[in-house]
């Protein structure tokens, strides 16, 4: 599975970075092989709001250790902005503008499982928290799509803490039509908040921040796919601690052969739910 890598601009004083390794993540190996290294660069692209083409922002090469690091603060990303990191062959030329986001290069050498990941890290008050993430090409190729997610990662919070939900979308072919993220109570179907966002950007939602849910939360988007990342930071008064993780997509709740049918059934329930507006 070839993948893109998001570098989001966040709020609440949180910075982000991604570290991309030139090593293959997983490979079936003979007796004598070391992990394979690849001659790849990372091209960073940005889709400015209202602009037509993708703009090449930077192109980074690996250091001697074999990785490439990109930091949000080096590119002045504002809240909701997004840079897309695209692995490209070192021999390939990167055009300064592109109507379509270039296809990512792959480090796969055989059929060994696991998506090609990078380390996505978040920084706040001198501490780091990370997960190994990616945005699959097959999701970025969708011109439309839907997203349903829930709030299990809010249980990482403690009194005084704050959770920033960052919903990331990458679309190779941009569409300026605004997107809408709805947040509602699962049991009562009460609509709590609507967040406007766009393709190739992030929807940001701080919780609780005035939101007083009376039960579990559902996040849904009926016009685009997205990957929700939950970033929980401790209260400003105490020592710094942080948690970062993404939620499972509905397909992951079912065994391999039932993934599509299960995801479809679950999404039908929640995408079709009629909401009570406040």
């Amino acid at each position, binding site marked *: 599975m070839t993948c893109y890598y998001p570098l989001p601009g966040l709020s609440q004083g949180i910075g982000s970075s991604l*570290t991309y*390794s030139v*090593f*293959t*993540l*997983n490979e*079936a*190996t*003979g*007796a*004598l*092989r*070391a*992990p394979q*290294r690849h001659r790849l660069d990372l091209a960073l692209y940005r889709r400015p709001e209202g602009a037509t083409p993708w703009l090449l922002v930077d192109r980074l090469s690996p250091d001697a*250790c*074999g990785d490439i690091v990109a930091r949000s603060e080096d590119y002045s990303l504002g809240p909701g902005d997004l840079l897309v990191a695209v692995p490209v062959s070192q021999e390939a030329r990167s055009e300064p503008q592109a109507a379509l986001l270039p296809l990512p290069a792959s480090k796969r050498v055989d*059929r*060994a*499982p*696991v998506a090609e*990941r990078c*380390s996505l890290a978040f920084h706040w008050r001198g*501490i*780091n*928290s*990370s*997960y*190994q993430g990616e945005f699959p090409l097959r999701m970025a190729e969708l011109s439309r799509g839907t997203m349903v997610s829930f*709030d*299990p*990662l809010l*249980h*990482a*919070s403690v009194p005084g*803490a704050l959770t920033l939900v960052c919903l990331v979308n990458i679309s190779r072919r941009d569409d300026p039509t605004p997107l809408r993220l709805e947040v509602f109570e699962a049991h009562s179907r009460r609509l709590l908040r609507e967040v406007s966002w766009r393709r190739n950007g992030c929807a940001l939602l701080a919780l609780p921040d005035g939101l007083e849910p009376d039960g*579990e939360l559902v996040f849904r988007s009926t016009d685009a796919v997205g990957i929700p990342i939950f970033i929980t*930071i*401790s209260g400003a008064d*105490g*020592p710094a*601690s*942080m*948690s*970062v*993780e*993404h939620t*499972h997509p*509905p397909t*992951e*709740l*079912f*065994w391999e*052969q039932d993934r599509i*049918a*299960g995801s479809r*059934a679950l999404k039908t*329930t*929640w995408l079709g*739910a009629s909401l009570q507006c406040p």
Partner: protein
Amino acid sequence: MSVIKPLRSTLGRIVHRRSLPYTSLPLRPGDASFSDQFLYRGDLAGHRFVAENTLALLSGEAVPVTHRLSFFDVEGQFLGHQDTPSSRLFTAIDVADPGAELASYIHTSHYGPDILRAFCAAHPTAANLRRLHRGYALYRRSGRSVYAAVHGNVGGIRLAGWGAAGRTRHLARRRGWFLYTPQIRFAADQKVSLYLLNPCRQRERITVMQATPSGQALSRSELPVLSRLSVPGRGLRCCRLEGISGYVTLRSRLPMCRPLIFIEADGHPDHFDVFHT
């Protein structure tokens, strides 16, 4: 048409089974609830597990369920169960001491016969879906910190029966040799713990090597070995790294030998970075 598609899928899985982390054969009828393998650490300030109620998520309604956490010690021996009834979509369970400071566990869900009958009548197309419990494990380093979350990793384990005392069925398989290189560069000033959980029935030997001792491409025989571990089925081992700078790679016969990693940095006693690879 309905027969051809699953048949082609099964044949494809058999042909490419050398790369499959789980069995290539179709599941038997009645196999309903499988779990990833999770880590319990008793040396921390707190540990929560967030369990999903799949039938409630499918129906959009409250469905009574019993969540069962089944614990195994580092050698893979059964320790006990912790049962939690709930009707919520997701239930945060404060994990009780299973009788060992370090253990692995699985999560399975059980619905009563009346509940299942009513669900099947109302949702016939969703009734036979096989549930995979991936869950979220939350670790709290100190009483002043938030919980650090990590979702389920690899498993494919189920209880052989609800009344069984820890007998399990395993779908994970050992195959040929694999090299798994977590996409994270460690720094010399970090304290890194790699937790390696074995979801198979058989013991697995895992070699942890440094991938970039000098930034040069080397053959495997030239890579410095940091640790050699023998991990029993259902059991786990920990490999601690200090003063290591660069990447590590793990050689084993597990198609997905993905460690759960805890990183502690000096000067931050209330925080650690927890993630699976």
